[in-house]
Protein backbone atom coordinates (compact mmCIF):
# COMPACT_ATOMS: atom_id res chain seq x y z
CA UNK A 1 0.00 0.00 0.00
CA UNK A 2 2.86 2.32 0.85
CA UNK A 3 4.39 1.74 -2.57
CA UNK A 4 1.10 2.55 -4.27
CA UNK A 5 0.80 5.83 -2.42
CA UNK A 6 4.39 6.76 -3.05
CA UNK A 7 4.09 5.93 -6.72
CA UNK A 8 1.27 8.38 -7.18
CA UNK A 9 2.64 11.30 -5.20
CA UNK A 10 6.34 11.34 -6.03
CA UNK A 11 6.95 13.08 -9.30
CA UNK A 12 3.37 14.28 -9.63
CA UNK A 13 3.07 17.78 -11.04
CA UNK A 14 6.13 17.40 -13.25
CA UNK A 15 5.81 16.21 -16.83
CA UNK A 16 7.40 12.81 -17.14
CA UNK A 17 8.83 11.45 -20.38
CA UNK A 18 6.31 9.22 -22.12
CA UNK A 19 6.89 6.25 -24.38
CA UNK A 20 5.17 6.33 -27.78
CA UNK A 21 1.62 5.06 -27.53
CA UNK A 22 -0.90 3.32 -29.78
CA UNK A 23 -1.66 6.17 -32.18
CA UNK A 24 2.01 6.57 -33.16
CA UNK A 25 2.30 3.19 -34.84
CA UNK A 26 1.13 2.05 -38.25
CA UNK A 27 -1.75 -0.39 -37.95
CA UNK A 28 -0.53 -3.89 -38.79
CA UNK A 29 -2.25 -7.23 -38.41
CA UNK A 30 0.11 -8.28 -35.62
CA UNK A 31 -0.61 -4.99 -33.83
CA UNK A 32 -4.34 -5.68 -34.16
CA UNK A 33 -3.96 -9.27 -32.96
CA UNK A 34 -2.00 -8.05 -29.94
CA UNK A 35 -5.03 -5.95 -29.01
CA UNK A 36 -7.39 -8.86 -29.72
CA UNK A 37 -5.33 -11.05 -27.40
CA UNK A 38 -5.84 -8.69 -24.49
CA UNK A 39 -9.51 -8.03 -25.25
CA UNK A 40 -10.29 -11.74 -25.67
CA UNK A 41 -8.42 -12.46 -22.43
CA UNK A 42 -10.52 -9.89 -20.59
CA UNK A 43 -13.69 -11.32 -22.16
CA UNK A 44 -12.73 -14.83 -21.04
CA UNK A 45 -12.16 -13.49 -17.54
CA UNK A 46 -15.86 -12.65 -17.31
CA UNK A 47 -16.76 -15.64 -19.48
CA UNK A 48 -15.54 -17.86 -16.67
CA UNK A 49 -18.80 -16.81 -14.97
CA UNK A 50 -20.58 -18.93 -17.61
CA UNK A 51 -18.51 -22.02 -16.74
CA UNK A 52 -19.01 -21.46 -13.02
CA UNK A 53 -22.74 -20.92 -13.49
CA UNK A 54 -22.99 -24.05 -15.65
CA UNK A 55 -21.22 -26.18 -13.01
CA UNK A 56 -23.14 -24.70 -10.08
CA UNK A 57 -26.45 -25.13 -11.96
CA UNK A 58 -25.64 -28.78 -12.68
CA UNK A 59 -24.73 -29.30 -9.01
CA UNK A 60 -27.86 -27.51 -7.77
CA UNK A 61 -30.45 -29.64 -9.56
CA UNK A 62 -32.66 -30.20 -12.62
CA UNK A 63 -34.55 -26.90 -12.29
CA UNK A 64 -31.44 -24.74 -12.01
CA UNK A 65 -29.91 -26.64 -14.91
CA UNK A 66 -33.05 -26.18 -17.01
CA UNK A 67 -32.86 -22.42 -16.35
CA UNK A 68 -29.25 -22.36 -17.48
CA UNK A 69 -30.08 -24.38 -20.60
CA UNK A 70 -32.98 -22.08 -21.40
CA UNK A 71 -30.85 -18.95 -21.16
CA UNK A 72 -27.86 -20.36 -23.03
CA UNK A 73 -30.27 -21.72 -25.67
CA UNK A 74 -31.90 -18.34 -26.25
CA UNK A 75 -30.56 -16.21 -29.09
CA UNK A 76 -28.72 -13.88 -26.74
CA UNK A 77 -27.26 -16.84 -24.87
CA UNK A 78 -26.14 -18.42 -28.13
CA UNK A 79 -24.56 -15.12 -29.17
CA UNK A 80 -22.66 -14.90 -25.87
CA UNK A 81 -21.59 -18.54 -26.20
CA UNK A 82 -20.45 -17.96 -29.78
CA UNK A 83 -18.43 -14.98 -28.60
CA UNK A 84 -17.01 -17.01 -25.73
CA UNK A 85 -16.01 -19.85 -28.09
CA UNK A 86 -14.26 -17.46 -30.43
CA UNK A 87 -12.52 -15.59 -27.58
CA UNK A 88 -11.35 -18.89 -26.10
CA UNK A 89 -9.93 -20.20 -29.37
CA UNK A 90 -8.45 -16.86 -30.34
CA UNK A 91 -6.77 -16.39 -26.97
CA UNK A 92 -5.48 -19.98 -27.06
CA UNK A 93 -3.97 -19.53 -30.54
CA UNK A 94 -2.66 -16.08 -29.61
CA UNK A 95 -1.09 -17.70 -26.57
CA UNK A 96 0.63 -20.29 -28.76
CA UNK A 97 1.95 -17.39 -30.85
CA UNK A 98 3.38 -15.81 -27.71
CA UNK A 99 4.93 -19.12 -26.66
CA UNK A 100 6.60 -19.35 -30.08
CA UNK A 101 7.96 -15.84 -29.55
CA UNK A 102 9.20 -16.89 -26.10
CA UNK A 103 11.53 -19.33 -27.85
CA UNK A 104 12.96 -16.37 -29.84
CA UNK A 105 11.45 -17.54 -33.12
CA UNK A 106 9.04 -15.86 -35.51
CA UNK A 107 10.18 -12.25 -35.15
CA UNK A 108 10.90 -11.52 -38.82
CA UNK A 109 8.35 -9.10 -40.34
CA UNK A 110 6.88 -11.72 -42.69
CA UNK A 111 6.77 -14.32 -39.89
CA UNK A 112 5.05 -11.91 -37.53
CA UNK A 113 2.32 -11.11 -40.02
CA UNK A 114 1.95 -14.81 -40.92
CA UNK A 115 1.54 -15.74 -37.25
CA UNK A 116 -1.02 -12.95 -36.82
CA UNK A 117 -2.92 -14.14 -39.89
CA UNK A 118 -2.82 -17.74 -38.66
CA UNK A 119 -4.24 -16.61 -35.30
CA UNK A 120 -7.31 -14.86 -36.72
CA UNK A 121 -7.98 -17.32 -39.56
CA UNK A 122 -7.42 -20.26 -37.20
CA UNK A 123 -9.67 -18.95 -34.46
CA UNK A 124 -12.55 -18.07 -36.80
CA UNK A 125 -12.40 -21.39 -38.68
CA UNK A 126 -12.05 -23.48 -35.52
CA UNK A 127 -15.03 -21.64 -34.00
CA UNK A 128 -17.13 -22.41 -37.07
CA UNK A 129 -16.04 -26.07 -37.09
CA UNK A 130 -16.79 -26.43 -33.40
CA UNK A 131 -20.25 -24.88 -33.76
CA UNK A 132 -21.11 -27.07 -36.75
CA UNK A 133 -20.02 -30.11 -34.74
CA UNK A 134 -21.99 -28.80 -31.77
CA UNK A 135 -25.17 -28.38 -33.78
CA UNK A 136 -24.73 -31.81 -35.37
CA UNK A 137 -24.33 -33.32 -31.89
CA UNK A 138 -27.41 -31.46 -30.71
CA UNK A 139 -29.38 -32.46 -33.80
CA UNK A 140 -30.11 -28.84 -34.69
CA UNK A 141 -31.13 -25.78 -32.69
CA UNK A 142 -33.37 -26.16 -29.67
Amino acid at each position, binding site marked *: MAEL*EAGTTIGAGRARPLSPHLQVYRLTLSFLMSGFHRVSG*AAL*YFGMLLIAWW*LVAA*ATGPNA*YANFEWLIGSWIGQLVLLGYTWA*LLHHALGGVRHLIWDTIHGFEPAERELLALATIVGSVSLTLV*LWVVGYL*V*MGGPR
Partner: protein
Amino acid sequence: MREPELRTPMRRVRGLGAAHSGTQTFWRQRVTSVAGIPLTIALLIIVVALLGRSHAAVVQILGSPLVAIIMLLFIINMTYHMWIGMQEIIVDYVHEGKWKLLSLMANTFFVFAISLASVYAILKLSFGV
Protein backbone atom coordinates in the same frame (compact mmCIF):
# COMPACT_ATOMS: atom_id res chain seq x y z
CA MET B 1 15.30 -3.74 15.81
CA ARG B 2 16.27 -3.52 12.19
CA GLU B 3 19.29 -5.47 11.10
CA PRO B 4 21.96 -3.31 9.49
CA GLU B 5 21.59 -3.58 5.74
CA LEU B 6 24.83 -4.57 4.08
CA ARG B 7 23.49 -4.93 0.55
CA THR B 8 23.36 -1.80 -1.57
CA PRO B 9 19.94 -0.55 -2.80
CA MET B 10 20.95 -1.55 -6.33
CA ARG B 11 21.68 -5.11 -5.21
CA ARG B 12 18.31 -5.37 -3.49
CA VAL B 13 16.19 -4.26 -6.45
CA ARG B 14 18.20 -5.71 -9.34
CA GLY B 15 16.14 -8.19 -11.31
CA LEU B 16 13.04 -7.69 -9.20
CA GLY B 17 11.23 -5.04 -11.23
CA ALA B 18 8.24 -2.92 -10.29
CA ALA B 19 6.32 -5.77 -8.68
CA HIS B 20 9.27 -6.70 -6.41
CA SER B 21 8.83 -10.35 -7.33
CA GLY B 22 11.13 -10.62 -10.30
CA THR B 23 10.02 -12.71 -13.23
CA GLN B 24 7.90 -15.01 -11.07
CA THR B 25 4.57 -13.73 -12.40
CA PHE B 26 5.80 -13.83 -16.01
CA TRP B 27 6.92 -17.43 -15.57
CA ARG B 28 3.71 -18.57 -13.87
CA GLN B 29 1.68 -17.02 -16.68
CA ARG B 30 3.73 -19.12 -19.13
CA VAL B 31 3.31 -22.31 -17.08
CA THR B 32 -0.46 -21.87 -16.84
CA SER B 33 -0.69 -21.00 -20.55
CA VAL B 34 1.11 -24.21 -21.55
CA ALA B 35 -1.08 -26.25 -19.21
CA GLY B 36 -4.11 -24.40 -20.55
CA ILE B 37 -3.71 -25.78 -24.08
CA PRO B 38 -4.52 -29.47 -23.40
CA LEU B 39 -7.00 -28.49 -20.67
CA THR B 40 -8.92 -26.20 -23.04
CA ILE B 41 -9.05 -28.91 -25.71
CA ALA B 42 -10.34 -31.30 -23.04
CA LEU B 43 -12.97 -28.77 -21.91
CA LEU B 44 -14.22 -28.30 -25.47
CA ILE B 45 -14.53 -32.08 -25.93
CA ILE B 46 -16.38 -32.42 -22.62
CA VAL B 47 -18.78 -29.56 -23.44
CA VAL B 48 -19.56 -30.87 -26.94
CA ALA B 49 -20.08 -34.38 -25.51
CA LEU B 50 -22.56 -32.97 -22.98
CA LEU B 51 -24.60 -30.87 -25.45
CA GLY B 52 -28.29 -31.69 -25.37
CA ARG B 53 -27.98 -34.35 -22.66
CA SER B 54 -30.40 -34.56 -19.76
CA HIS B 55 -29.49 -33.15 -16.36
CA ALA B 56 -29.06 -36.65 -14.95
CA ALA B 57 -26.61 -37.61 -17.70
CA VAL B 58 -24.68 -34.34 -17.29
CA VAL B 59 -24.39 -34.89 -13.53
CA GLN B 60 -23.19 -38.45 -14.06
CA ILE B 61 -20.55 -37.50 -16.65
CA LEU B 62 -19.28 -34.35 -14.87
CA GLY B 63 -19.06 -36.32 -11.62
CA SER B 64 -17.09 -39.21 -13.10
CA PRO B 65 -13.48 -39.18 -11.83
CA LEU B 66 -11.61 -38.47 -15.07
CA VAL B 67 -13.94 -35.66 -16.20
CA ALA B 68 -14.10 -34.15 -12.71
CA ILE B 69 -10.30 -34.18 -12.35
CA ILE B 70 -9.88 -32.53 -15.77
CA MET B 71 -12.49 -29.90 -14.88
CA LEU B 72 -10.76 -29.21 -11.55
CA LEU B 73 -7.40 -28.81 -13.29
CA PHE B 74 -9.01 -26.54 -15.89
CA ILE B 75 -10.67 -24.32 -13.27
CA ILE B 76 -7.63 -24.01 -11.00
CA ASN B 77 -5.20 -23.46 -13.87
CA MET B 78 -7.34 -20.98 -15.79
CA THR B 79 -8.50 -18.94 -12.78
CA TYR B 80 -4.86 -18.51 -11.72
CA HIS B 81 -3.95 -17.54 -15.30
CA MET B 82 -6.76 -14.99 -15.50
CA TRP B 83 -5.89 -13.59 -12.08
CA ILE B 84 -2.38 -12.76 -13.34
CA GLY B 85 -3.77 -11.53 -16.69
CA MET B 86 -6.29 -9.15 -15.15
CA GLN B 87 -3.68 -7.89 -12.72
CA GLU B 88 -1.49 -7.05 -15.71
CA ILE B 89 -4.32 -5.20 -17.41
CA ILE B 90 -5.13 -3.27 -14.22
CA VAL B 91 -1.56 -2.12 -13.59
CA ASP B 92 -1.36 -1.04 -17.23
CA TYR B 93 -4.41 1.22 -17.12
CA VAL B 94 -5.23 2.08 -13.50
CA HIS B 95 -2.58 4.37 -12.08
CA GLU B 96 -4.41 6.21 -9.31
CA GLY B 97 -3.42 4.61 -5.99
CA LYS B 98 -6.86 4.06 -4.46
CA TRP B 99 -8.48 2.73 -7.64
CA LYS B 100 -5.51 0.54 -8.43
CA LEU B 101 -5.66 -0.98 -4.96
CA LEU B 102 -9.43 -1.50 -5.12
CA SER B 103 -9.40 -3.02 -8.60
CA LEU B 104 -6.53 -5.36 -7.74
CA MET B 105 -8.50 -6.41 -4.67
CA ALA B 106 -11.68 -6.88 -6.72
CA ASN B 107 -9.69 -9.04 -9.13
CA THR B 108 -8.63 -11.32 -6.29
CA PHE B 109 -12.15 -11.50 -4.86
CA PHE B 110 -13.66 -12.31 -8.27
CA VAL B 111 -11.12 -15.02 -9.03
CA PHE B 112 -11.47 -16.65 -5.61
CA ALA B 113 -15.28 -16.58 -5.79
CA ILE B 114 -15.40 -18.04 -9.29
CA SER B 115 -12.82 -20.73 -8.66
CA LEU B 116 -14.21 -21.75 -5.29
CA ALA B 117 -17.79 -21.91 -6.60
CA SER B 118 -16.68 -24.04 -9.56
CA VAL B 119 -14.53 -26.36 -7.45
CA TYR B 120 -17.34 -26.77 -4.93
CA ALA B 121 -19.80 -27.60 -7.72
CA ILE B 122 -17.47 -30.20 -9.26
CA LEU B 123 -16.85 -31.83 -5.88
CA LYS B 124 -20.58 -31.87 -5.14
CA LEU B 125 -21.25 -33.48 -8.53
CA SER B 126 -18.56 -36.04 -7.75
CA PHE B 127 -19.42 -36.94 -4.18
CA GLY B 128 -23.16 -36.29 -4.28
CA VAL B 129 -25.32 -35.16 -1.32
